[in-house]
């Protein structure tokens, strides 16, 4: 979350908690997997990882985003 905030130059500053419903939705869709691990301090934490389907989805979404943003840029510039 901090990373998003910093990279976007504080333009995007979502609530940190809203990360979780999003993660759970992606998990529901099968794009990411999750498992509970026990950390050094003895507490449990949930670790997420991309699945094969998730990687494919990410590539597809990225490509689409690039196409769309390029198109919008072009339209804006020509106008």
């Amino acid at each position: 979350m901090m990373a998003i905030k910093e990279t976007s130059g504080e333009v995007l500053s979502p609530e940190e908690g809203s990360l979780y419903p999003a993660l759970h939705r992606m998990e529901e869709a099968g794009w990411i997997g999750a498992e509970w691990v026990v950390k050094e301090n003895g507490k449990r934490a949930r670790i997420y990882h991309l699945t094969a389907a998730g990687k494919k989805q990410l590539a597809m979404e990225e490509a689409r985003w690039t196409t769309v943003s390029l198109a919008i840029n072009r339209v804006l510039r020509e106008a």
Partner: protein
Amino acid sequence: MSVWTRVWNAFRGDRLNRELNEEFESHIEEAVAEGRDPEEVRQVFGSMLRQREASRRVRVAAWLDGLKADVIFGWRQLRRNRVTSTAAILSLALAMGACVSAFRLIDALLWRPLPVTAPERLFALSRAELTFEGKPTHFDGWAYPDFVLMRSAAKGQAEFVAVSYTDRMDLTYASDEEMEKGLVQYVSGWMWESFGLHPALGRLFTQQDDRVPGAHPVAVLSYDYWSRRFARDPKVIGQTLRIGNQLLEIVGVGPKGFTGTEPGTVTEIFLPTMMHRSVTRDDSTWHRILVVIPPGTGMEPLRAKLDAINMAFEGARAKGFTGMSQQSIDNYLHQRVEFLPASSGVSELQEDYQQALEWLGVLVVLVLLIACLNVANLMSVLAAARAREMALRVSIGAGRWRLVQMVLVESAMLSGLAGGLGAMFAWRAAPLVLSMISSPDNPARLILSPDWRVLSFGVVLIVGVMLLFGMLPALRASAVKPVSALKGGDDPHARRRTMHGMIAVQVAFCFLVLFTAGLFVKTFQRLSHIPLGYSPQGLLLLESVAPHGKLPQAWEQVADVLRTKPGVERVAESGWPLMASSSNNAVAVNGGPPSVDLVYFLPVSPGWFETMRMRIMAGREFLLGDVNPGAAVVNQTFVKRFFNGENPVGRYFEEVGDDGLRQHFLVVGVAVDAPYRSVREAQLPVAFVPLHEVDAKGVVQPEDSTTFLVRMAGNDPTAPMARAGELRKAVAAAGAGIRVSNARAQQELIDGQTVRERLLAMLGVFFASVALLLAGIGLYGVLNYSVLQRRREIGIRVAIGARGGTIIRLVTRSVFSMVVAGLIAGVGLGLASARYMESLFFQVKASDATMLAIPSAVILAVAAVATVPAVLRALRIDPVEILRAE
């Protein structure tokens, strides 16, 4: 995450919440560990509750979550109104159980297709015809030579299979001393292949095993019999069994589930038709014909072709009927071949019970409707009490369908619980009813194992019942308007009107059930009070056989042995028991032409009438010297029909055989009329002839079967069967080569003819009582509710001087007018439907005033009793208390 995880998560809501919380906490802890300010971290995280709900929605099947909440809430509601719920569940369970039982029986007997390939293409060949006397009838029995002609004519168009009427025969797997009974069916060798059946063990016989009369001693056991009799011992293949003088080898076991072609009878042993003793005879109709008609064959042309062949066959045969009147022959040749659908097989039990079971089905559906109306009324009362709760739910934003779902879930729980209980009831009830139909001599067995058909019927029933009684209250509850509900209720009369309407419908149905039950009971009473002409109590029948035939002296010697046994009063013999079988021929009086009306014969020994306690009206009974042909005792109907009612003693008549052979008989006595074949039909002309038969040269003929009639001393109705085993052994021990093949009481034979009527009467009374009880409870509930609701009104009326009578009228008037309206509708329904049941009645008229009056009076009486508590409650209303409470 799959649908199943989401469904699963709905049942572990708390655990899911804990996991989400843990995940959020670990996020915050990590942030704090990185050195961030805890306050700031929590703020940036956002509302934990909101995130959790958002995640939950993703991870839980929402509909299920709501459903779960409804179930828990519904369960609480049911438990809160414990008495009402129990009453509703029990009454529904009874009605649903009865429905499922009726379905199981009807399905097993009438609907379930035979386990053969394409049962829908299976037809039974039958003929619409006239009896010799000219009465229209249907008959599906055929002579084998006729079958052969028709089969070859239809070659390529349809496949013909002959299946005999299943016969309960004496057979043994070892010696004569170990005889047992077995249900035997003779079937065409190619039946197995035509039906697409495969053996469970060994082989099934084929066309090759069914070519030459008497030359194919092979047998196939049914799977069911193999399991019961041989505990599925594979070594049974190759074993032999003996039936009469035939030694047969078991070659295989039929497929599981195939129990023959007669629902109600589980065939035990299949034999090729060629092994039947009458296979070459053209005058013995001993088998049915099943026809597999492939698609593409025109039914009508085929039927016409078969009709022509059959007419030619019967016409040629009738040329030999020289001993018959032309009228009888014309009647006989009035035949029309027809195809009857036989996808579920053909059997006598089907014919006997089809209508009875259908009516039973209607009765149980009526009881179910009454129960549903009752529960709907109860639910309406409960819903009225919950109007405020519903209004509150609507005002805080509950959608209409959400409320419908909530109420329906409650209904579903009621009907589900009732369905479960009902299933247990049906589990026991269907076999019980079947055992009432069955008798040791004529065992009725149906495959009643629960299959997907029964299961889906049950599910449809539960859902149907739920919608039937739950939909109305659900819709009404959901349509509640918060404003009016919170104000103290909208139009209270609307609800009452619906409830009153339901009372009228209930009463109409209840009347119908009571009315039919009354007709069935009356029918049974009439049948059991038919004058028999003799005393059946204490009469034991020992149907005995002598495999190679024995002379009368041998039979008489056995009778003497029986006479020495203690408790035996008298012993006589007859060819067969009265009402067990029949034999008829035309007669001629004064050398005239053969009669159209046939005369029924029974050979009996001297002393038979005395043993039966059958009165001789004139003349005498048989003496030792009487022989057949020679002397005869005729009954009163015979005298009326052939001697114009004049005393016939000393006069002659002739028995005329089909072949024209005439035998002279001198009438020596007149016996009182007694049902010869069936208690249901009008008295037949009967001629009793001596058992001692002599041929044309006067030589005494051996007998291979005779029935010993044993009269027990005393009046104990159980005495005959209690002594049967002992006397049976005594016959074998007499050493005359005579053996008892069947022992039964005469009373059993008589009762056997009214089994259907007794069943209908008993079940009718049972369902009538249930219907009456339910209607009473319903009436009580509605009245009680209306008194509660009109408390204030009644209080005010009392305060301004209304007397008790006025109050009673106020409370009961509308309900009683509904009861009367229901009764009138019920009478109409009853009279209309009685016409369809006529064939089930015996000397009973549906339009009989008492048959209509009794149920009406009973219902009115029950209604009166049901109103008492509500009336008392209304009378006890204290105006002061009511007005103070306002």
